[in-house]
């Protein structure tokens, strides 16, 4: 079962997202700030496949901190960033830093939850394929990798 971490400072947001993702069959954990999520991500037992984080929490760009911590701990971890509607500046930056994608929280007429679920599925696919590629590389050219090391 894939493990997902939700980071948002608003209880209502965490509750709604968690409920939906559990319904989709994921194991879900939550953190209420960038600070606490970073602690969680850097701990030994951390093993999240996907992290969904809000961009603006303690700071307007707190999401970037979560993103760096997640990828820093596990290069295959996929991060989906949630942003305010119409605020793409930080979103672009997060893509450059390696986020899987960003989702605007309030797009008129769009079911954001369905969108997030879709992004999570795609993120998990990429994670699986990334891991597979690395494994195949290891299988096919173990000697070369070793000699290169």
């Amino acid at each position, binding site marked *: 079962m894939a493990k997902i971490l939700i980071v948002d400072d*608003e209880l*209502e*947001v965490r*509750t*709604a*997202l968690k*409920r*939906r993702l559990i*319904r989709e069959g994921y194991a879900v954990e939550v953190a209420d700030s960038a600070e606490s999520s970073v602690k969680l991500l850097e701990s030994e037992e951390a093993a999240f496949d996907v992290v969904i984080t809000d961009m*603006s929490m303690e700071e307007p760009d707190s999401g970037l901190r979560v993103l760096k911590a997640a990828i820093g701990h596990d290069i295959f971890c996929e991060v989906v960033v949630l942003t*305010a*509607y119409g605020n793409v500046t930080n979103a672009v930056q997060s893509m450059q830093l390696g986020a899987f994608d960003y989702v605007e*929280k*309030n797009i008129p007429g769009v*079911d*954001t*939850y*369905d969108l997030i679920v879709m992004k999570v599925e795609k993120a998990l696919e990429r994670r699986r394929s990334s891991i597979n590629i690395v494994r195949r590389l290891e299988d096919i050219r173990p000697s070369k990798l070793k000699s290169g090391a």
Partner: protein
Amino acid sequence: MSIQETTNRDENSMALTSTTQKPNDCTFQAQLQSLIGLAITHPEIEEVLQAIMDEALRVVAGKRGFLAVVNYDTGEVVIKSTAGSGWTERTKKLRLHLAQETNRGITGHVALSGKPYMTGDASNDPYFLSFFPDVKSEIAVPVIEAEGNTRGVINIDSSEADAFDAGDIVRLESVADVAAFALIVNDFRTRERALIEIGNELSSIIDLESLVRKVVDVSAEVLRYEDCSVYLLDEQTDLLVLQASRGPLKESIGQATYELGQGITGWVAQHGEPVRILDVASDPRWRGVHLEIPREEMGALLCVPIISRDKVVGVIRVVRRRTQSSWFQNNFTEMDERVLTTIASQLGAAVENVRGFHRLLRAERMAAWGELSAKSAHMIGNRTFALKGDLNELRYILNQPSWTEQHDDLISLLESMEHGVTRLEEILHEFRDFVVATKVTLQDADINEIIQEVIAESFPKRSEIKLILQLAKDLPVVKCDETRLKRAFSELIENSVSFQPHGGELLIRSRLTDQSEQSRYRLAPSRQYVQVEFIDQGPGIPPDTKSRIFQPFFSSRVKGMGLGLSIVKGIVEAHHGIIIESGEPGKGAWFSIFLPTQRNESSAIKNGRS
């Protein structure tokens, strides 16, 4: 007339001194010198004039005497100081109308001619006017000011015939010079006091309206004018707009305007130079657009620019009525012009202060607005996002065939949505309160009444918190917007209640602010303040956040956007008041609100009623 000359002339009349017991020159000179000293050092002009009159009576050995001053506005000579015997309260109040052709008396004659006069045979004198039955001789000299204007008259009588001679005139003229000196010194003192008063006042007033009113009142004392008007230049329209006046123009404040260059007022604003003229109507620039007194009565005009940072920001004009008698020149002096220019420059600096203050407020508010928009969009966005999640879940449940069995899930969804909508409403509420905090309509109100009503509305009926009320009796009226002030008070009460969840104490106190507090918090010294305090036993404000609690979006409570205390501050400042927090961290919060009381007039009315 110099004292030297006096002594020379005095020698000629030495023969008379022995019979009428007149003092010798040395005593007289010493007396004059001590009177000059008195005029310089003694602050009360009445007592100085009294000493001068006593000496005047003594030096010519008269029976009784008086010093009268000319009132240029009314055309009267009014007694200011008396000496000798036989005066009653009624005779002390005698006035002479100089405009009348007859019955001006010797005093009136001297005032108009500016020359001394004496008679040794009063009953046959053409000018003599009998106030006392026993007068046989009378002597009067004018009190002449620096510019040559007659300021008043010293008049001495005697019950003996031919009691005075030319030497007496000379001696009395010396005394009159000292009297003129004393009056001028007093003028300077009055002006200095007034200027200092204006200076003190101007630095502490933050609303333009009361500032300008104060200037008009104080200059009235100093310049003896009929009326005074202040026009300020509107930065947007480039029109001079009337801000204050004492007479009939009062009705047109805010409406009467001059264009730059229009009339004398507009000319002064355009050229940045003062205008001082004796006869307004004869000046080609005069248009007579807005008149303080009827056209035919307009006399002298003094008009100076109000300058701030090398720019004309307005004009002060003072006018005098045309004088009743052609003998008088009721013009403004160069000294008057200097005084008004000084007042105008102080006003200019103060206007700049006030405008700068408002610009700062506007800028602060604009910045807050930007932040407010971003913050509220974020918060509303999050709430909507959560609500959307609930709706999404609702649809999912309803799409299942077994949805009727999921009653509990549906109820919890419903509760979550209700909660979300409430949060949205709270945000809108705060948003609105923040926006309207500074839009107040001020009306006279009893602060204690407001406090009691707020407590009835906002303090929880069942509470673990002990509420203590200490409301001072007979507080002066405060000009305030009841609804807004209640909002501010209730915010502080709700804060205190929410920070003492396990019970505690809230003390609400009202009282008159004392002088030491007034200066500690740099409140205007000339105003009276009422203070309302909210003192509790909650956790208080931590030292590191004390400086930020009144900023927008600062909150240690979960509810709303954190605008609460910034709204309170906005409301208090719109009342020209201040709010401070002075509690000891860990021991409780202590909020004090200082509100200026209504100016004397209306509080006097209130006291009169109670």
